[in-house]
């Protein structure tokens, strides 16, 4: 039987052998920790501590704002040094709480106290997940408690644990499956408790046979959980592609996975859920892979959120040769860094350092219309047509070609024999469309407001005129009566 998969995609060099056998090591670094208030999709959190306050590990330092948002939890004990904009992986500064660690990693009381998930109600579970500040650990950082609150719990028939780890070079999810598989299954069981009709699927790409074997062994007695091997192909772990591969269902960008009866959570997220619910431990640590051909000791390290990449790299042994390219994340969707002094956040997954930059070494040449990007696009788009629309500023045309369905996975740029920066062009065009939509919405709001004011003013004037008339007639009547 052919392995489950989706249509399209590519198979970049995996590079996982560098770090796949490096066991997760714990790294508690001293010094300064930076907690950006926006580590998730949605409204940024609001700092709820002041400069000079003493905080403990596990203490809330940022308050979620609005429905789609997440709390920010301090991962260390120490003193709040500053609350100021700090540089992020994306290159823009962002409001952050800076905590100087006291090196003791003292936790708030109660953290680590075990409890039984069986005694908890659905609401209690969701509240615990929310309070733990958990967001998707796979990359996008969608607040997990929102995911766990679909319109109808009964309608969910698949809960997918995403262990596909399709991004090249990354091995943190693989190590977690090998070393903390029990927690993944524990987390999955907690989630299945929320959705009575759901089947738990642990989806793993077939380039990790040991993980498939290990997880299959672990869930041997579980009736509602099974392991599904997927074909190794990028972007197998993309939420929509994964749902398609596992269930055969399709969703587009305006639908939620729950609309197709499925919920997807990364295996690391499930561990965080387990920690939060059973061990009463909020999200404070994160396993990241430090790898690449320029790294001396490729490794998987469990670090505290807020640590700087620079410190992590130094702690694992640094570089063995000059790195031409530094990437936060994997080579397909990660962000290139020009400065390593940026903090690890909840969705962070890796630090890659490469001695060569393939982008720089492959200059762009003319498009030969080979249509390899069309065949590879996992969203069934036609990149060359979208490029034509985008580069001519035709945003309507770009939208008509379903440009907003693009998930910026980078497959088109990867397969392009002419090395066109397709994904980059789409990122820009998508930003422009989103800005346009925002501007239009704002303009509409403004117009509506003005109309309302004008209407009210008109009504007031009418009322005043009537009043006047009434007064006048009253006077006239009084006069007549006199």
């Amino acid at each position, binding site marked *: 039987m052919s392995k489950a998969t989706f249509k399209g995609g590519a198979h970049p060099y995996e590079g996982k052998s560098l770090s796949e056998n490096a066991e997760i090591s714990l790294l508690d670094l001293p010094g300064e920790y930076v907690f950006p208030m926006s580590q998730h999709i949605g409204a940024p959190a609001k700092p709820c501590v002041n400069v000079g306050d003493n905080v403990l590990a596990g203490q809330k330092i940022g308050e979620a704002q609005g429905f789609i948002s997440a709390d920010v939890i301090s991962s260390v004990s120490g003193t709040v040094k500053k609350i100021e904009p700090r540089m992020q992986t994306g290159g823009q500064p962002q409001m952050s709480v800076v905590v100087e660690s006291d090196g003791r990693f003292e936790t708030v009381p109660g953290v680590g106290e075990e409890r039984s998930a069986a005694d908890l109600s659905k609401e209690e579970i969701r509240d615990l997940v929310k309070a733990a500040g958990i967001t998707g650990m796979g990359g996008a950082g969608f607040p997990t408690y929102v995911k766990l609150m679909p319109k109808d719990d009964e309608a969910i028939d698949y809960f997918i644990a995403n262990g596909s780890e399709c991004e090249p070079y990354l091995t943190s999810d693989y190590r977690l499956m090998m070393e903390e598989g029990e927690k993944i299954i524990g987390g999955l069981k907690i989630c299945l408790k929320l959705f009575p009709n759901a089947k738990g699927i642990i989806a793993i790409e077939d380039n990790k046979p040991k993980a498939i074997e290990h997880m299959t062994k672990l869930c041997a007695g579980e009736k509602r959980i099974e392991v599904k091997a997927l074909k190794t192909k990028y972007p197998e772990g993309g939420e929509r592609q994964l749902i398609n591969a596992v269930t055969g269902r399709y969703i587009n960008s305006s639908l939620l996975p729950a609309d197709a009866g499925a919920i997807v959570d990364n295996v690391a997220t499930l561990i965080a859920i387990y920690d939060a619910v059973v061990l009463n431990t909020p999200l404070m640590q994160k396993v990241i892979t430090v790898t690449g051909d320029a790294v001396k000791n490729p490794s998987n390290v469990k670090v505290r959120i807020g640590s700087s990449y620079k410190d992590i790299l*130094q702690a694992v042994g640094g570089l063995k*040769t000059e790195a031409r390219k530094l990437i936060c994340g994997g080579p397909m969707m990660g962000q290139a860094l020009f400065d390593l002094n940026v903090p690890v956040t909840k969705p962070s997954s890796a630090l890659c350092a490469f001695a060569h930059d393939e982008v720089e070494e492959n200059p762009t040449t003319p498009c030969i219309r080979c*249509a390899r990007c069309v065949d590879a696009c996992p969203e*069934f788009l036609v990149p060359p047509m979208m490029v034509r629309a985008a580069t001519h500023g035709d945003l309507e045309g770009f939208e008509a070609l379903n440009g907003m369905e693009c998930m910026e996975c980078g497959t088109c740029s990867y397969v*392009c*024999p002419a090395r066109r920066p397709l994904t980059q062009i789409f990122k820009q065009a998508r930003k422009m469309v989103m800005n346009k939509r925002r501007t239009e919405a704002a303009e509409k709001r403004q117009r509506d407001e003005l109309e309302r004011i004008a209407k009210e003013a008109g009504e007031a004037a009418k009322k005043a005129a009537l009043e006047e008339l009434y007064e006048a007639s009253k006077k006239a009547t009084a006069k007549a009566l006199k």
Partner: protein
Amino acid sequence: MNNIEFTLENPHVSSSPHARTEVTTRRLMTDVCIAMLPALAWGVYHFGLYSLYVTVATVAACVLSEYVFEYFMGKPITVKDMSAVVTGMILALNMPPEIPIWIPVLGGIFAIIVVKQLYGGLGQNFMNPALAARCFLLISFAKKMTDFSVESMPWATVTPDGVSGATPLALIKAGGEVDLTALLVGNIPGTIGEVSVIALLIGAAYLLWRKVITLRIPLSYILTVLVFTALFGGRGFDVYYLLCEICAGGLIFGAFFMATDYVTGPLTPNGQIVYGVVLGILTGLFRLFGGSAEGVSYAIILGNVLCPLIEKYTVPTAFGKGKYLKSKAKSAESKLNKMVVVKTFIITLVSGVLLGGAYVITKEPIAEANRAALYAAYEELVPGAAEYKDMTENKELSDAVADTNNTLTQSGVYGDVTVNNLVTAVDESGNIMGYIADVTDHEGYGGDIEITVGYIADESGELKNTGISFLSIAETAGLGMNAQNPEFKDQFTGKPAMADGSPAVLSVTKSGSAGENEINAMSGATITSDAVTNAVNAANMAVSAVEGGNE
């Protein structure tokens, strides 16, 4: 903190993804070149080393013109991407084996400079450069481009009737039979690269294995030709005949190497299938109903032009949009693909039936009209006959025509001229009233001139020319076309068919005062004058052959 030294002098920043596949434009183009090598090797083995010279010269012309153009236009030099080599090879493999080398070289320059570079270089040309160049050469040097005879090559295997250099398709079209094995191996006349189906398929398999091409275009193309030929080829599902149609005429070469050209084909998967079907229909139309037996090159060029339209209407449904929604999505997807195939097939069928129907309906009336025109000409030349009997009904006449044509080709006295038909005009009692000869001179200024010449015996029993009438003439207006004016054509009236027992010979004079056996040339149109006069001389010869035999 330990003292690991950081060497982060100059990290490079760019947008993701940061990885690139090893497949480059250059590698794809090189693969196409490699895939054409078996066909080239067979061409060289089969036609001789000269084919290799042609190929090398064409490739060199393409690469050099690309280099020179880019150098002088101050553009980056891109000859290393191998695309000019591909163009050169395709063009060369489309050349007749004994073509004078300057022709493909000219074609290569045209392909690169006019078709490719003037439109903006690689990726911007809207037509396949090699094919556009081939068609340019076909139009400019029609004779040399369609002369597939090779001096040292006896084509006995495919041409039992000895028509040297006729391609298998031309043979099939003319009602002949071809040997399928010879077609597969490539033991046939044709262009350098198109003859061996086996060699081409080896190359195609390589391209598929290297994932340079997909089967969408070639397969839909070939299948459509198959269906079209089966429907309208007039031989039904005669497997042998259908296989011959597919293996012949460069279809395999065109389908795998030319129709799959990236730049000029559609991007969308369904568009590629539609494109293949369109090419198949066009090829079938050109082959079965067109003037020439070959149609692949013109079909692909036309398909190139249709490509933007095809693309526009075949943009795929995005993942999760429309028909893909929710659980039934997977079957919807395959249904969609099937629907496109079914729809295009129906369109093909309907348009094919319409075209075929139009052909069948108009075929008889057109033939009828042609016959009527012919009879009107006969009637004008030998009036009052009860019946006109031509050589298909009379062996004596056909022998005379064959003898005359033999003499004409062997002696060559009247140049390239053919007697097409000889007709006797018979009265009610069966007596021969006169003769009409139908002659074509191939050496007119504008190509063939076809005339009919009438003869009636006078009182002395001597056959005299009753006039000539033109069936087809395409000379220069105001000059050669004046042949139809009475001043010129009436000069022939009254001239005897024979003199002293042998065919009378007329000659053209420019003196303006024609003698007994002379015809005054039209001013400025000596070639036409000569051609018509030669045709009349040939007619005299044919008539004499019958009349002489009668005596």
